[in-house]
């Protein structure tokens, strides 16, 4: 089979169209460069009536929203989840990493929780703080101007609280708390856990003329048809096209490798067109990888050449190493004070939480090194498949009979509707060299590209942190006058409910940045140490996670790297 070459030479090829790729597309196209965006999935626009799931009713589907085809339920706007047909991945024995992939324009930004937290000053200097992991080669002050610009460009609600490690920003006002959130605030107060308004990228008011304002359907995971929440397509790529940017989007195009010349410099990429299953090459002066931390590592490791025998940018042998996800553990409480709800009003609100608890602890006085934040959910949501299962299980707390049938079932459903509150702890794990992804030479995907094999185990640091989460949740539920449900409190035998790595979908660190080319893959501008015209702008260059979500930092660092690329291109340094 002949590889089909395109004669056009782009200024920049961007692989992937999620948060990092979208931001680089916008910045480079706005600066007048000729950009090719290469996306493995199909085109997606949240406003397209054909694919829209927002405001669908459960009864519009024969399965009433069940998650048979989509892991997070059939209204979730991610095409692809832990499994993607024809694109397997493998595990080292005794390990279990779950790899979420959204194959669509905009990637995972179409369904994510929109929790938009800045990393704080301490988060960039973990090693200085406790001797574990590594410090970033940059600090909060380097990133702050970009966080500010991201806030203003994309829009994020929240409040300036003057917290040391949860920096203030340029916020629009948050929505008022819902009933269960008032219970949470009250319960947390009793224990001295702080609660503040959430910081999420939905528009509670206008930030420009192009995007709509939130109409409070609570369905951001379905991607907003009026562009009132952040997704990479609606907020970055489409606006860049609209303002006249030279952007060519290649969809259904699965990148195999970065191509290089005799000097070892990148010349472009090769990809498989999923429609005709032929291999093509595109040329560019600069290649930007934004395929997600693990996919970008995979592309680098598969880009072997005489000049780069160990894979591109991998003279350090660090590509794929230091893979780490946020930690996650959860608990659920039945709160009798929330029984017998008055259903006369619509409390959908924004998708997810209106309030949350940033990390409050002092790790120097605890037996685990890094913190976590608490997310809270509950309320009178729209029923979907699974609603009303074990309808009267909470009768147990009143000594009443469980089960049965007849008219009492109706009463029980209504009595308990909206009385459950859930807690999710999302924390920082320690980046370890021993946790990594690598190429599995024994397995190909359906495009003939070698797949990733994962090797990832939690350490005691994360397990102890999860134990602290469980103790905290137990106390919160108690403070709210509730009872723990759905299996009760997790203990040592199940690692305190610590979720499998990858399950929180915040994986970072596979191409970490640093000043020393022997121990890092990129420099502090996301540029490969080994090849100066290749950049990585997804979460791969993260040196460490924080007790935060990674998207806002991906956006800020991608913008920062884009400014550097523009400057270097103008100076003709690359």
């Amino acid at each position: 089979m002949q590889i089909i070459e395109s004669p056009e030479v782009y200024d920049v090829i961007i692989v992937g169209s999620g948060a990092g790729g979208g931001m680089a597309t916008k910045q480079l196209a706005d600066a007048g460069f000729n950009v090719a965006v290469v996306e493995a999935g199909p085109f997606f626009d949240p406003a397209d009536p054909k694919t829209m799931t927002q405001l669908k009713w459960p009864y519009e589907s024969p399965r009433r929203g069940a998650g048979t085809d989509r892991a997070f339920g059939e209204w979730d706007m991610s095409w692809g989840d832990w499994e993607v047909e024809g694109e397997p991945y493998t595990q080292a024995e005794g390990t279990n990493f779950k790899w979420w992939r959204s194959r669509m324009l905009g990637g995972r930004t179409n369904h994510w929780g929109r929790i938009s937290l800045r990393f704080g000053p301490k988060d960039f200097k973990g090693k200085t703080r406790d001797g574990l992991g590594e410090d970033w080669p940059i600090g909060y002050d380097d990133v702050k101007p970009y966080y500010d610009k991201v806030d203003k460009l994309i829009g994020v609600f929240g409040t300036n609280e003057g917290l040391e490690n949860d920096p203030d920003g340029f916020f629009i006002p948050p929505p008022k708390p819902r009933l269960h959130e008032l219970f949470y605030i009250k319960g947390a107060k009793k224990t001295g856990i702080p609660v503040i308004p959430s910081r999420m990228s939905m528009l509670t008011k206008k930030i420009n003329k192009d995007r709509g304002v939130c109409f409070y359907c609570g369905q951001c995971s379905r991607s907003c048809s009026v562009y009132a929440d952040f997704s990479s397509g609606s907020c970055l790529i489409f606006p860049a096209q609209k303002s006249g940017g030279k952007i060519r989007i290649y969809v259904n195009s699965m990148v195999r490798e970065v191509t290089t010349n005799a000097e070892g410099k990148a010349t472009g990429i090769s990809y498989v067109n999923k429609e005709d299953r032929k291999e093509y090459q595109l040329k560019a002066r600069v290649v930007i990888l934004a395929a997600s931390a693990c996919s970008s590592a995979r592309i680098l490791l598969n880009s072997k050449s005489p000049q780069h025998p160990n894979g591109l940018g991998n003279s350090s042998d660090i590509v794929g190493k230091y893979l780490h996800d946020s930690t996650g553990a959860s608990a659920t409480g039945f709160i009798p004070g929330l029984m017998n709800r008055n259903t006369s009003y619509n409390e959908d609100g924004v998708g997810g939480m209106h309030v949350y608890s940033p990390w409050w602890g002092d790790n120097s006085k605890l037996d685990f090194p890094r913190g976590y934040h608490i997310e809270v959910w509950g309320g009178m949501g729209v029923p979907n498949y699974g609603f009303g299962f074990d309808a009267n299980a909470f009768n147990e707390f009143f000594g009443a009979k469980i089960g049965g049938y007849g008219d009492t079932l109706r009463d029980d459903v209504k009595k308990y509707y909206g009385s459950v509150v859930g807690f999710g702890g999302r924390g920082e794990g320690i980046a370890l060299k021993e946790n990594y992804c690598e190429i599995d030479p024994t397995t190909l995907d359906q495009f003939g590209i070698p797949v990733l094999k994962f090797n990832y185990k939690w350490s005691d640091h994360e397990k102890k942190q999860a134990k602290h989460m469980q103790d905290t949740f137990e106390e919160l539920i108690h403070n709210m006058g509730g009872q723990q449900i759905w299996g009760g409190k997790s203990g040592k035998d199940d690692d305190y409910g610590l979720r499998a790595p990858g399950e929180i979908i915040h994986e970072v660190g596979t191409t970490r940045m640093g000043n020393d080319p022997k121990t890092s893959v990129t420099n502090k501008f996301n540029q490969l140490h080994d090849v100066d015209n290749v950049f990585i702008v997804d979460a791969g260059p993260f040196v460490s996670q924080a007790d935060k979500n990674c998207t806002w930092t991906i956006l800020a660092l991608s913008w920062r790297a884009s400014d550097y690329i523009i400057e270097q291109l103008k100076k003709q340094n690359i």
Partner: protein
Amino acid sequence: MDRRKSIQTIILGAGASAIVFHGCKTEGDKTTTDIAHSSDPDFFGRTPEELERIEKLNAETLFNEHEMETIAVLSTVILPPKEPHGGPIEAEVPEFIEFMGKDIPELETPLLGGLMWLDHKCNTEFGAEFKTATLEQQKKILDPIAYHDTEVPLDEQTLEIQFFALMRNLVVSGYYTSKMGIADLGYKGNMPNIWDGVPQDVLDQHGVEYDPEWIAKCIDQSTRATIATWDAEGNLLT
């Protein structure tokens, strides 16, 4: 004749007196906007591959007519219809259960086996199939399996207990995800709205209140259409 009609006929024909039909009222304070109307009902947000799979499942038959009728009768015993929001038949619960039995293959055997058990038991005890037995007889069959020991995991219980628990879950879920069930529940969302806090009477009912300092930081909904601007310190100006 469409299948749903035939189920309605058999149930009425079987003289299940508890069942009374009422057209579901779609009353309400629907705030309609262009958003709600812009989506394409033919797709309900499915990709072509997902649609194809649904069509394939729809073309398959899991239950024969007798089994569908038995499910219909059983589902109305589990959740008797009630004015003004009807019951499982109007909510198309039997059709939903059949679809789920095909969509989630693990459900197939417990459902088929459970239905067989039901008739076998009913025939043994009363010389009648479950669907034609009297309500009294049906309850005598169901009572011993409807209240299981919750200390023992469900998958360690007998098949008939598992079957009933599964049926009850599917009936309740199927009903409350239908138009009538949602009306019965009273859920008011899934439509454009402007959230401006919990109503005072609800706060009073649950004994909580808003902290004025907190509320002062929240969005004043009269300013939602005003484009945000900030000073250099991040204080919102407009």
